[in-house]
């Protein structure tokens, strides 16, 4: 009995009128946890009841504490008939279970009903007393921290990064049980919400156990997903990266809450003891996208009984003496792991040695029905939801799903090996389900990690080692990990434009964020490849085979499009690549998003050349040359737009290009219907090789046109799908997170692939245009972490969901930094718009070949941070001179506040109304909660992580027209979901959600019946942040209360 849960119901407000006669409500509350239920008194005739209940106490196992949600139901008392439910609140008490997070949950929660939406609010206080549990065989994993953030959380230090953890649990979907036919939609929705809540709780606990086994204390990059398999059940699965984290003791000592996770990590060695594994395997499309212009042979293999997709790529040889040593070292560390995967997308500097390219695997599976007669019988009992019980009489089921994923992971692993890499970073998994067909996908970036980080070692040791070999951090990750004489695919290699010593590919694709120490020229931009393919309707195996056959072609086309668009932008690398393949009844959709950048270390990309097949026709020639001109113009324009002006380097310095293993490679284009259309890819144009598009039919023409139809964002706007925009580093504090959903209906008449493509392309482009228009008041601003999700809810419907955050930045500073591209690229995203000066920690590692003054740096760091200068500014300076100047300034100024805050008034966002009171509305009681898909908040420091937010909601209506149609319904629902997330965060004592993600938004409508249903799953990390400007005030006002200032005094006297 290791825990006591205490709940107090304080009051309600804005309750709905439940009694028409009196226009009032007689409300009372049921508080339920596990099988225990308490009730408050009935508070008669009020819409704002004050229950002020006693403390309801539940004595429970910590296992239950982890799995079960606290369920609060508000009801209207009725003397003569059954009490009417007003709504419910589910509270996940997990954040109370580890010491550093929240200690109490207290606040106003929206009362939610799956049919009526939010109906008033209820004020609840929840506490947990945990008793020490000495049982070593416990089933709970209380105390393991979970983070959605895919980098090391800002106020922690990674002591050890253990590696991949995964788990999945399966259950029958209540919506598909026989009982669903006789119960109300409300009961069915609530059963589903509750089940998923339980399943997530259990999943998290099980993952926690694995982490404890690995001797870790946290999971970073935790990604939990639901697969609604319909009849065959409900799968909840999660992956993450197990770590041992240390809380940074002095809040002043770590760096900006902005995006340079790297620097503070320098003393934290990442040691990798043997890790833990998972399972399995399957097929890959682009197993590497590294600029290999497509040379994977897509042999369609159907390997197992179940339908798995396409051909695997090549089996590359480990090779070359050149990298042998490195490989040996890392091998040993990683070998014990079944899957050396990391869900992280940003890493401490030096962690990432080389990046091979994108590896991905997909497999098509047929879902078979779960038959499980025993389950329904015990439905009424709460415990019956317990998955342990359930699994015990249906134990083969999760194993099947496990095996499927194990196959895919195995495949990924082998692809990484083929690229000469021993690890996969930026790893993620996803599914797309249509009826009984399911496509499982996994992708990541093959990488070589620093062997020293992978061995046990002390802090000092690692630090020193790093200093010795810290030769080329800025370009090192671009260097090929594979052996150039024995490449897994033909690629075009040159010597690195940065160090001139190692070889680099001409193009680099990755799924990770841009490493903070990478040198980028100009700005980045969002690049999307969009593709539709019609497919015949078919059943079961025939359907799966058809999909399997289409997949490789789609992968290939998506890749070609990405490559073309990248060239068109004049860039040479993609980060944050995410390829989503969605399956529908009669079509497949592919959407790839990534952020294009120009890496200084890689060669200048060649242009795109158009070649016609029938050169005799004069007008045709003219047309071609016209098109060529347009393309060239676009490239030139883009280069200007994104400020890509790399320094010219003469041929001699670079040396001769490395001889190509193959001079030419021909590839089949991907249309399944017409395999005679051929695009020739010429790889032999030497260094400045142009990408040749051969036009011989309307289809290819389409492609070229579609290249040119992508409109750049209006001036003042930038967009990317990574955490930060390369080339912009002066964020101001205004942020606006949003979700936008669009559904279009295709006219079913004679749909062709071209028409489909055009529709889809227009849909995405129009959506982006709308976003730019809506957010125009924030200019200059950047849309970050733009995340598109495509689904095909019905035959002729395409749904696109976008979640992103718009962040304003300071244009003037942006202009300043454009002076020299090299200088600019050294600068990191800094989160404020305060006066100049801070000192560049990364200088030492960035612009100097080795670490010249580590002690000085330490000293300075404390000096500057202690003197109340927000650390965020520290990475602004870009020259050594400035550093010296700064040091002088810092010391001179001592503990006096040195910065001038110019907080911009925010016209739209919630920038700074916390301290502003605008009469007569000043007495607002609702605190502002920011939400962002990023891991940081510009201009602010995250001081505490309060726990993971993982919420699942269902909303249903039988009066769709009355609620404003589908748009009105979904608009209200999404607003409600935001509200519930904010309320939970506020109740935990937080003021923001970072790494927020809407993982699922399943929308179904039946306009004829005036009905609609929507399921939304969101997650993120609840945090407390402090504005950097406030932080200064605090530190200068209360010098004795924080060590920060007292240290300062010491510093100044020296």
């Amino acid at each position, binding site marked *: 009995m290791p825990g006591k849960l205490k709940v107090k119901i304080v009051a309600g407000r804005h309750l709905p009128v439940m009694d028409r006669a009196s226009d009032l409500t007689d409300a009372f509350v049921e508080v339920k946890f596990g099988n225990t239920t308490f009730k408050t008194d009935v508070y008669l005739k009020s819409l704002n009841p004050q229950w002020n209940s006693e403390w309801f106490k539940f004595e429970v196992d910590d296992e239950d504490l982890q799995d079960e949600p606290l369920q609060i139901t508000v009801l209207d008392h009725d003397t003569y008939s059954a009490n009417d439910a007003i709504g419910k609140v589910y509270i996940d008490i997990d954040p109370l279970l580890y010491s550093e997070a929240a200690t109490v949950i207290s606040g106003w929660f929206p009362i939610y009903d799956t049919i009526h939406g939010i109906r008033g609010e209820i004020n609840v206080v929840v506490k947990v007393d945990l008793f020490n549990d000495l049982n070593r065989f416990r089933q709970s994993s209380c105390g393991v921290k979970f983070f959605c953030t895919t980098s090391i959380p800002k106020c922690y230090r990674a002591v050890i990064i253990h590696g991949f953890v995964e788990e999945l649990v399966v259950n029958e979907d209540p919506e598909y049980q026989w009982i669903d036919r006789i119960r109300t939609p409300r009961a069915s929705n609530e059963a589903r919400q509750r089940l998923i809540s339980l399943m997530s709780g259990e999943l998290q606990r099980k993952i926690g156990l694995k982490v404890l086994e690995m001797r870790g204390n946290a999971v970073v990059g935790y990604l939990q997903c639901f697969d609604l398999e319909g009849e065959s059940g409900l799968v909840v699965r999660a992956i993450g990266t197990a770590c041992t984290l240390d809380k940074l003791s002095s809040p002043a000592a770590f760096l900006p809450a902005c995006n340079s996770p790297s620097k503070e990590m320098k003393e934290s060695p990442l040691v990798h003891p043997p890790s833990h594994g998972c399972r399995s395997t399957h097929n890959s499309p682009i197993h590497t996208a590294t600029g290999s212009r497509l040379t994977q042979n897509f042999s369609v293999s159907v390997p197992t009984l179940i339908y798995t997709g396409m051909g695997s790529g090549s089996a590359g040889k480990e090779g070359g003496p050149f990298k042998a040593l490195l490989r040996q070292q890392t091998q040993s560390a990683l070998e014990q792991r079944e899957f050396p995967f990391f869900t992280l997308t940003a890493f401490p500097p030096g962690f990432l040695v080389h990046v091979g390219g994108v590896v991905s695997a997909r497999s098509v599976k047929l879902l078979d029905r779960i038959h499980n007669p025993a389950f329904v019988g015990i439905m009424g009992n709460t415990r019956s939801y317990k998955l342990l019980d359930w699994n015990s009489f249906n134990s083969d089921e999760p194993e099947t799903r496990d095996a499927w994923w194990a196959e895919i992971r195995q495949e990924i692993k082998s692809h990484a090996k083929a690229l000469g890499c021993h690890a996969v970073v930026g790893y993620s998994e996803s599914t797309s389900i249509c009826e009984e067909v399911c496509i499982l996908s996994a992708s990541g970036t093959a990488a070589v990690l620093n062997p020293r980080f992978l061995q046990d070692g002390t802090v000092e040791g690692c630090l020193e080692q790093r200093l010795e070999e810290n030769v080329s951090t800025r370009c090192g990750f671009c260097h090929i990990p594979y052996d150039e004489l024995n490449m897994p695919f033909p690629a075009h290699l040159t010597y690195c434009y940065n160090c001139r010593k190692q070889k680099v590919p001409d193009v680099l694709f990755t799924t990770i964020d841009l490493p903070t120490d990478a040198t980028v020229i100009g700005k980045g931009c969002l690049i999307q490849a969009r593709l539709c393919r019609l497919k015949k309707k078919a059943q079961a195996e025939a359907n799966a085979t058809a999909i399997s056959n289409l997949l490789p072609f789609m992968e290939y086309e998506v890749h070609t499009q990405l490559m073309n668009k990248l060239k068109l932008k004049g860039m040479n690398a993609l980060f944050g690549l995410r390829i989503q393949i969605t399956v529908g009844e009669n079509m497949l959709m592919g959407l790839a998003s990534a952020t294009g950048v120009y890496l200084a270390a890689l060669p200048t990309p060649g242009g795109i050349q158009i070649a016609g097949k029938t050169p005799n026709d004069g007008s045709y020639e003219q047309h071609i040359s016209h098109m060529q001109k347009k393309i060239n113009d676009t490239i030139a324009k883009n280069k200007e737009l994104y400020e890509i002006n790399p320094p010219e380097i003469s041929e001699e310095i670079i040396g001769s290009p490395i001889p190509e293993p193959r001079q030419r490679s021909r590839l089949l284009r991907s249309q399944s219907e017409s395999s005679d259309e051929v695009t020739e890819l010429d790889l032999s144009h030497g260094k400045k090789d142009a990408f040749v598009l051969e036009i011989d039919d309307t289809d290819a023409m389409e492609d070229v046109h579609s290249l040119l139809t992508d409109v750049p964002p209006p001036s003042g706007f930038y967009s990317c799908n990574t955490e930060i925009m390369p080339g912009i580093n002066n964020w101001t504090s205004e942020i606006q997170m949003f979700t936008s959903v669009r559904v279009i209906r295709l006219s079913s008449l004679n749909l062709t692939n071209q028409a489909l493509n055009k529709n889809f392309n227009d849909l995405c482009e129009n959506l982006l245009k709308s976003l730019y228009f809506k957010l125009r008041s924030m200019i200059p601003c950047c849309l970050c972490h733009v995340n598109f999700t495509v689904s095909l809810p019905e035959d002729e419907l395409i749904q696109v969901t976008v979640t992103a955050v718009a962040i304003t930045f300071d244009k003037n500073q942006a202009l300043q930094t454009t002076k020299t591209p090299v200088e600019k690229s050294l600068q990191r995203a800094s989160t404020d718009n305060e006066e100049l000066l801070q000192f560049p920690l990364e200088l030492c590692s960035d612009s100097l070949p080795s670490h010249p003054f580590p002690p000085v740096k330490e000293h300075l760091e404390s000096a500057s941070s202690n003197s109340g200068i927000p650390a965020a500014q520290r990475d602004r300076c870009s020259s050594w001179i400035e550093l010296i100047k700064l040091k002088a300034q810092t010391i001179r100024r001592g503990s006096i506040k040195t910065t001038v805050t110019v907080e911009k008034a925010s016209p739209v966002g919630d920038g700074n*109304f916390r301290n502003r009171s605008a009469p*007569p509305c000043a007495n607002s009681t609702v605190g502002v909660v920011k939400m962002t898909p990023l891991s940081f908040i510009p201009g602010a420091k995250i001081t505490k992580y309060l726990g993971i937010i993982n919420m699942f909601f269902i909303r249903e209506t039988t009066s769709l027209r009355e609620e404003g149609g589908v748009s009105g319904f979904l608009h209200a629902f999404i607003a409600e979901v935001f509200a519930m997330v904010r309320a939970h965060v506020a109740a935990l004592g937080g003021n923001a959600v970072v790494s927020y993600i809407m993982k699922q938004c399943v929308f179904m409508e039946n306009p004829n019946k005036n009905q609609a249903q929507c399921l939304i799953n969101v997650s993120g990390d609840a945090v407390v942040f402090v504005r950097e400007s406030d932080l200064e005030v605090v530190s200068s006002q209360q010098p004795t209360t924080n060590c920060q200032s007292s240290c300062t005094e010491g510093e100044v006297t020296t």
Partner: protein
Amino acid sequence: MTSELDIFVGNTTLIDEDVYRLWLDGYSVTDAVALRVRSGILEQTGATAAVLQSDTMDHYRTFHMLERLLHAPPKLLHQLIFQIPPSRQALLIERYYAFDEAFVREVLGKKLSKGTKKDLDDISTKTGITLKSCRRQFDNFKRVFKVVEEMRGSLVDNIQQHFLLSDRLARDYAAIVFFANNRFETGKKKLQYLSFGDFAFCAELMIQNWTLGAVGEAPIDPDSQMDDMDMDLDKEFLQDLKELKVLVADKDLLDLHKSLVCTALRGKLGVFSEMEANFKNLSRGLVNVAAKLTHNKDVRDLFVDLVEKFVEPCRSDHWPLSDVRFFLNQYSASVHSLDGFRHQALWDRYMGTLRGCLLRLYHD
């Protein structure tokens, strides 16, 4: 390809002031889009008409959802669904409760019941304000009236507290509620030259001086608590006003009053002779208005009477405003020198307010 569903939801609710205005003005989405196109926004932003349509729809949907909350502004502050900065909340409320001069002149002093609602159509046609907007404005008046009707205490404070309006707007609403409650006639042709501002000014003076709340402390008599402090005129005061009749009924008193005023103003007034000739008429008019206020019907006609009995005669003799001021000041003050007159305090309470009102009403 048709768009089935198209929404945008921000963590901070986006409010476009221009679209809000169009919505408040009662334009349909189509009209609003057309108006926005005409404003040149497409050229400024490079957006397409489709984008504008989608954006307008989105804002309209948001406003529609917010409207329920705007009916009880404190709810807007405490609700959790829309995260809106306080300054924006204030703007939303203020604009929602703002009204058109043309509209308010049409309904000022009318009973705010359903009966008037069917007249909204006519008002809409007459003023050119969309029916939707008329309805909103009318419903706002009615809602505010209903909420503060039964309340004790300062009318302006009550309105401000329950509707979170700015001081200025709350005062206007107090005037509207006050006029509606007392059903002052404002629609007569001869009153057409008066603006809402003129009436609001008078209402404020009357609330300050002529209502129960104006007496200061709450009445001790529990029955009188039934009266609204600020909404209803002080019945006792109105009864007492009959006593003023002596000023015109008693011939000696009237002559004395006249001579006092004439002596004081001789040489100072451009229209002295006209004043002298008209004094008795004017004085009778003003005092009779007071004496009649016991009847509800006459209370309603207060402004008609004032214009008929005072404003129009003066205007026809082309009194400049400064002369009116001189006259009224002297007219009120001289009463203090009338030894036979015992109701000095009553006179001041009446004339103090009336003087203010008349000066405001005296213009073309």
